């Protein structure tokens, strides 16, 4: 039954979608990169605005909130007066993390990184396990053409809308 359903769905899609076989031109998305060397720019920086939150974690009264592709906001939620974050931990290309004891583990493009957070204002980047994460290679929640990711340019940290000329990647979302 599922096979029939899949087949019918495929037929429907193939018959109703644009099936041009040349590259796409026109408005679309282009990846923005940081270099692989820049992925090591890990550590405390000034407080950042919340623009696109991601996974969260509560450790005592410290609340950690991912800023997608940029790092982690750290707040003290016991202090009802404090509006601003205590600090921001820069982790380029991050999408998710967890914490165990005084260690924070996060993705960093294709790698897993470990940070000592015993002193939240002076975190220490400890190690990098290479090639254990499968990163997303297309723009999320977007439907249309995009410039294919070129990993020789580094790690993708965002997408911007731009006039494209003959690109060969396309999402359906």
């Amino acid at each position, binding site marked *: 039954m599922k096979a029939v359903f899949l087949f019918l769905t495929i037929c429907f899609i193939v018959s109703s979608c644009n099936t041009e076989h040349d590259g796409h031109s026109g408005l679309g998305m282009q990846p923005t990169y940081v270099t692989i060397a820049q992925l090591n720019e890990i550590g405390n920086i000034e407080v950042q605005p919340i623009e696109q939150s991601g*996974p969260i974690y509560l450790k005592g009264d410290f609340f950690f909130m991912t800023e997608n592709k940029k790092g982690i906001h750290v707040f003290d939620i016991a202090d009802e007066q404090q509006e601003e974050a205590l600090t921001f931990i820069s982790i380029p290309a991050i999408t998710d993390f967890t914490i165990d004891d005084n260690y924070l583990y996060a993705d960093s493009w294709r790698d897993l990184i470990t940070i000592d957070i015993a002193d939240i204002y002076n975190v220490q980047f*400890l190690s990098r396990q290479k090639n*254990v994460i499968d990163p997303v290679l297309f723009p999320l929640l977007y439907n249309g053409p995009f410039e294919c990711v070129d990993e020789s340019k580094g790690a993708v940290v965002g997408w911007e809308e731009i006039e494209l000329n003959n690109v060969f990647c396309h999402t359906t979302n």
Partner: protein
Amino acid sequence: MFFAIQQINMKLNLNFIGMLILTGILFSQCSADELGSFSESENGASGSITRFAVNDGYMYSLNPNQIQTFDLSDPSEPELVHELTTDYGLETIFIYEGNAYLGSRTGLYILGLSNPAEPVILSQTTRGEEFFGGCDPVVVKGNYAFSTIKIIENICGTFNSRSALIVYDVSNLENPVELGAYDLDEPNGLGIVNNLLFVCDAGSDKLVAFDISDPENTQPLPELDFPIENPFDMIVDGDRVIVSAMTDFHILDISDLSNINIIKSIKKGE
């Protein structure tokens, strides 16, 4: 999600292109802002939407079709010790009483961690076709698992959705049984407060409450729904609940469930 790329300029046969498009539709729905669950470790708690969890000296990390196990004997240098391959579509991990519950786009996986260095798949649910391709964080209490699924189909620009809370009886870890489904608008993370389950429903802009005192007879409890704009995920911590949204978060006092108060809201800033 990772199959969403169509290499359209290649000499692919139409079926293969169709398959790519289809998998693109099915696998590109869940964005980073939908990744996760509520896993408690000794000293903290994550939201329901995460791909990482630590338990008993090991960390588990999800790739779309793989569970990786890292030995944390030296916590400063995790060591990859095991890889377990699954169907494509893993999204969230929640550890409860020695087992890992994975939300996947094809259903719910339950992993046994009796040997924490080598997780084994105890069961994998299959899902009705109307839910195929959903995105689902999961939380567990006692013999019951609660999972939200969100489906945004996008077939050539036309959006349809069937999103719901699914309740499973997991008393037999090797044979979870779906007990019921409750329609929701656009559910994200979820959390349990005693006999209540709250679901972050971004579609209806509220925490939607369910009475789970008798999980086999889970009931919506609309009088306890709590309005919050575009909620994404939550962490329950005693009498307080933290609810995150895209550009802000809120701390709620839930000591009196019929009178939930926002203690504090942090906005985008600037």
